[in-house]
């Protein structure tokens, strides 16, 4: 690339590195909730994208309310909206598990169809309530614009924010799953449902809360995405394939795998996007994943088990 100064190239390298990192955090945040639900419970939630939309619409609603009633609060509402998004999506997930999912644990393919039905219904609810147009919450000032460490480098603030949020959520999930007592119960239930029930774990409650947690994290993802993309009734369906690919590629039962897979997919895609046209980059990324999955169906990380 002649004609560019060393400094410029360095700046692009930094920013491109950040773009990859940013896509990684986006993919990871999307996939984390699904990985918990799919990996730990074996349930396919096709409505995962719609739970993200729930988070996004919650943020939009809070933004509108704040703007109307307490405009002075605009700079802070976003933090609360993330918490609200988590709670709203989590509660809806809790009830969904109670009313639908728990009847289908032994039929994963049927869960897939039923949750697809749920996603259609949720889409229509969004359309009826918020209208078919794309909506955008008004973002607080501190989330807009960029951070400029040097003259030539612009690091998007929303990207930084999503990155930080992803790190936080991932950390929290790891703490919850691997350090807390509750996580022990979840893992115990995953490994041996009957035995866990026998030693006094309320496996039904564990399932329900795991599902709710996964949905809640989807809600957080949705809230975070309002900073970088749009929210419409069908927004969720745009993400669902990518999200599934991340989880499946990572190896279903492994959170580490999910992280590794989000990272490699994001890097591959952002590098290819840089050197190829957008459409071909997408096709090539997906195709690579599919081919690798065909060669290695268990994904990047898998646990060898003795049966």
């Amino acid at each position, binding site marked *: 690339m002649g004609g560019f100064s060393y400094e410029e190239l360095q700046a692009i390298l930094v920013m491109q590195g950040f773009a990859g990192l940013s896509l990684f955090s986006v993919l990871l945040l999307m996939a984390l909730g699904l990985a918990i639900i799919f990996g730990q419970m074996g349930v396919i939630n096709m409505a995962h994208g719609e739970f993200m939309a729930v988070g996004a619409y919650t943020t939009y609603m809070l933004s509108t309310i704040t703007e109307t009633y307490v405009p002075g609060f605009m700079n802070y509402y976003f933090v609360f909206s993330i918490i609200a998004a988590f709670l709203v999506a989590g509660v809806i997930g809790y009830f969904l598990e109670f009313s639908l999912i728990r009847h289908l644990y032994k039929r994963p393919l049927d869960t897939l169809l039923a949750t697809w039905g749920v996603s259609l219904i949720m889409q229509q609810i969004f359309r009826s309530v918020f209208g078919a147009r794309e909506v*955008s919450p008004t973002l607080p000032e501190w989330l807009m614009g960029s951070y400029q460490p040097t003259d030539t480098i612009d690091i998007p603030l929303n990207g930084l924010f999503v990155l930080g949020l992803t790190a936080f959520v991932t950390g929290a999930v790891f703490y919850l799953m691997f350090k807390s007592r509750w996580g022990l119960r979840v893992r115990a239930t995953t490994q041996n449902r009957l035995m866990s029930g026998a030693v006094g774990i309320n496996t039904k409650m564990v399932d329900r809360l795991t599902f709710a947690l996964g949905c809640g994290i989807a809600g957080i993802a949705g809230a975070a995405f309002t900073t970088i993309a749009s929210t419409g009734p069908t927004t969720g369906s745009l993400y669902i394939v990518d999200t599934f690919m991340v989880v499946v590629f990572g190896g279903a039962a492994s959170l580490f795998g999910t992280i590794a897979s989000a990272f490699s997919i994001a890097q591959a895609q952002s590098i290819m996007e840089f050197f190829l046209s957008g459409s071909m980059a997408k096709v090539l990324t997906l195709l690579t994943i599919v081919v690798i999955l065909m060669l290695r169906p268990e994904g990047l990380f898998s646990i060898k088990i003795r049966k």
Partner: protein
Amino acid sequence: MNTQATEGLWRHARKLLVAMSLGGSLAIGPVHAAPPTADVNTTGLAVTDSTVKVGILHSLTGTMAISETGAQEAEKLAIQQINDMGGILGRKIEIIQEDGASDWPTFAEKSRKLLVNDKVAAVFGCWTSASRKAALPVFEKENGLLYYPTFYEGLEQSHNVIYTGQEATQQILAGLDWVAKEKGAKTFYLIGSDYIWPRTSMKIARKHIENVLGGTVVGEEYKPLGDTSFGSVINKIRLRKPDVIYAAVVGGSNVAWFKQLKAAGITGQKQTLLTISVTEDEVLGIGGENLEGFYSVMKYFQSLDNENNVAFVKAFKEMHGKDSVIGDVTQAAYLGPWLWKAAVEKAGSFDVDKVVAASEQGDIELHTAPEGYVKLHPNHHLWSKTRVAQWSKDGQAKVVFESDLIEPNPFPEGYQ
């Protein structure tokens, strides 16, 4: 309800009719007397002594519903205004509305239903190119008449379609000329969603930039529909440092594109960006704050300051709510029924072939269109002006440039 605009249109139509009658015929009847049905309808259309049926065919459901709503509302407004003035050839217009459901075969099927079962005299409808392409063979086979409102890629000129939006060259060339002259732009970065309209538009833009303006295209990029990650593209743009970013990104991607541009520090103050895919409708989703300072190229903006438009905006808001916005396509759709009325009255018949023949005379014109004077070209497209407008935070655009009337050229030589 009867606003100045409609008054004006009516006056104009009458003038036209009178002029035509005087010039072309000895039998000068009173304007309001309805000519006998047997004379105005020789092909078995749904025309009675007091009514004429037309079809409206847009998506009321599915993903396209939101885009097509405005067009459909504008068509109804125009038809109501025409009826309030006494209709066409003394006949009130009755609407048969069908839902294309954002599904292309459905457009073809419903077109067939409207033409074969309902025998409508004209259809106002379609929005995406795909829906028009699907319906087109039906219109040609059944010899129907379609008024199509969307600005589109051109490369089409059907006997059975009147295109009331701009074809690509009309929209593109004037905007590029303006930016080259006004901003001294030499280098351009083209980015669009990956489908036919952006690709065709960019092709025309590239030819014009390279062959006419003597500039260079430093990058050309297409993102899959619905894609939301623009980080790498923005870095590529940064690397190339174009004078102008020329964008035709649509749908959900559009929102992500502008949000991420802003987040990357590329704003209207620092960078000239020209888009051909943002109307007032899109701004609702993108948010005015993300667009501030960027330019759109369209033939119509809601903020146009002329009395036709003021009346039109007022009437539209009365009918469809004060929060409704009017974009380019909505206005173009509004023209459809008026153009049809003018052509029918000129032909003195509802017969499709006669209406088309009248339309091809090159003298069907509307002085009172909200966008200003327009005239129907024999190639079934409209002569129209192209405007460049700059967006402000409130989601409205201020017109900074207005071209002369531009001749439509759906098969542009040297641009293919």
